[in-house]
């Protein structure tokens, strides 16, 4: 299990060289991306460093309270990101609340199910399993819910006349908004279905890759991913 290659800081620095090359290209081609690229890279490095610290503490504590708090904070951040990606915002707290609420419900449900029914670590809330698992599920959720909400609001705005036409003739809101809702759900699920169908052919899932790099035999890693 412990047969992994440790990285030193020079090697990390060399990896960031490509970010600088990209930033240089952005300057040459006037793409105006270099600033956001560098900010994102620095943000990522700082976030990862902090997360390294937090996870170390969290893993040593194995406390249901602190695991819960960490999970909650993760969901809030994911909700914020999904809300940021919206072209049209719902008014007031709906924009943030709807996405976060959906994510909270679905990701917590799936994570708890995976922990208690399939993986079954002891204790079931062991942060070493719970936190990375929630992170992966949240990542997918965020894409799906961000896309779905965006499709819902933009197509409701674009097709306002047709939705209202049905409302005016006495249709219920479920019927009138039916086509728009179905379209939104389809666009939310499309990336998941696409990536599922090409998994192992085009891309190796992060979790499986992680376990292979961590020294687990590929056949075992596949089992983890499939569950």
């Amino acid at each position, binding site marked *: 299990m412990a047969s992994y290659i440790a990285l030193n800081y020079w090697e990390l620095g060399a990896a960031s060289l490509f970010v600088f090359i990209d930033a240089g290209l952005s300057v040459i081609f006037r793409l105006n991306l270099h600033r956001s690229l560098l900010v994102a890279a620095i943000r990522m490095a700082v976030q990862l460093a902090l997360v390294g610290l937090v996870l170390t503490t969290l893993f040593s504590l194995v406390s249901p309270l602190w695991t819960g708090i960490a999970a909650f904070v993760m969901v809030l951040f994911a909700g914020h990101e999904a809300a940021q990606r919206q072209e049209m915002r719902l008014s007031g707290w709906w924009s943030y609340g709807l996405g976060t609420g959906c994510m909270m419900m679905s990701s917590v449900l799936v994570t708890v199910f995976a922990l208690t029914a399939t993986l079954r670590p002891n204790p079931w809330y062991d942060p070493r399993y719970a936190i990375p698992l929630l992170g992966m599920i949240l990542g997918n959720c965020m894409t799906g819910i961000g896309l779905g909400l965006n499709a819902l609001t933009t197509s409701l705005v674009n*097709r*306002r*006349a*047709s*939705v*209202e*036409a049905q409302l*005016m003739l*006495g249709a*219920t809101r479920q019927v009138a908004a039916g086509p728009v809702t179905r379209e939104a759900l389809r666009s939310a699920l499309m990336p998941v279905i696409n990536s599922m169908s090409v998994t192992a052919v085009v891309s190796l899932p992060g979790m499986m890759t992680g376990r292979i790099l961590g020294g687990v035999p590929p056949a075992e890693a596949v089992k983890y991913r499939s569950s």
Partner: protein
Amino acid sequence: MAEVVSVPGSDTLLRRKLWEILSTGVATMLANELGRSAFHAGSPILQIRDLRTNLLRPASLSLSAGECIAIRGPSGAGKTLLLRAIADLDPNEGLVCLDGRNRSTIAGPEWRRLVDYVPAEPGWWADTVGEHFSEWTTALPVVRELGFPEDAKAWPISRLSTGERLRLALVRALMVRPKILLLDEPTAALDPASVAAVEALIAIRVQSGLAVLWITHDAEQARHIAHRLLVVKGGQVREEVPEWQATSP
């Protein structure tokens, strides 16, 4: 009566009495004809008190069955907002009653079947004309009346002209059998023959009890179709004595 006739000298009195009776009858008939409806004198079917939105100042009005009110006013004054608020399509406050039933006690879909709004740019949710009607055969007489052939059912919506869209949206709305029809410039993009057809179509339904609020920019049309006149200006709704009633004695 026979006794009166037999009395000599009361001849003129009798004739005057007869004339009075006759003329009153004719006057009532004329009034009905002008009012274009036997329902005109009825109690209001739609009562609105202090209806307001964030752009519309409190508006009150009442509309009787078989009555048509023209709504006029400059563009952007809030005419459409008034109709949308009555149909409960935009957030609004105030008291709206239909046949004495408070709107807040009626579910949205049912309310909009009773009080049907036809916008200036109607929306379409399917590809062909026929898909927008629950029963095309029932709609057919009205469809023909407005100048469409029977095979209009298969016409793609994308190829309809603005005028055709307006007329078909009107048929679609009438098929729901509303008690109140809210029309937002239904003849704005029509040729004179179609305008006449639409006006006649609505007039017949008004005669049989339909109540209509009709937004129009055309003073002449307002005179043809309406019994009363509302003017909307800067979000303020008020009733005016129409010029065609003000000028006649």
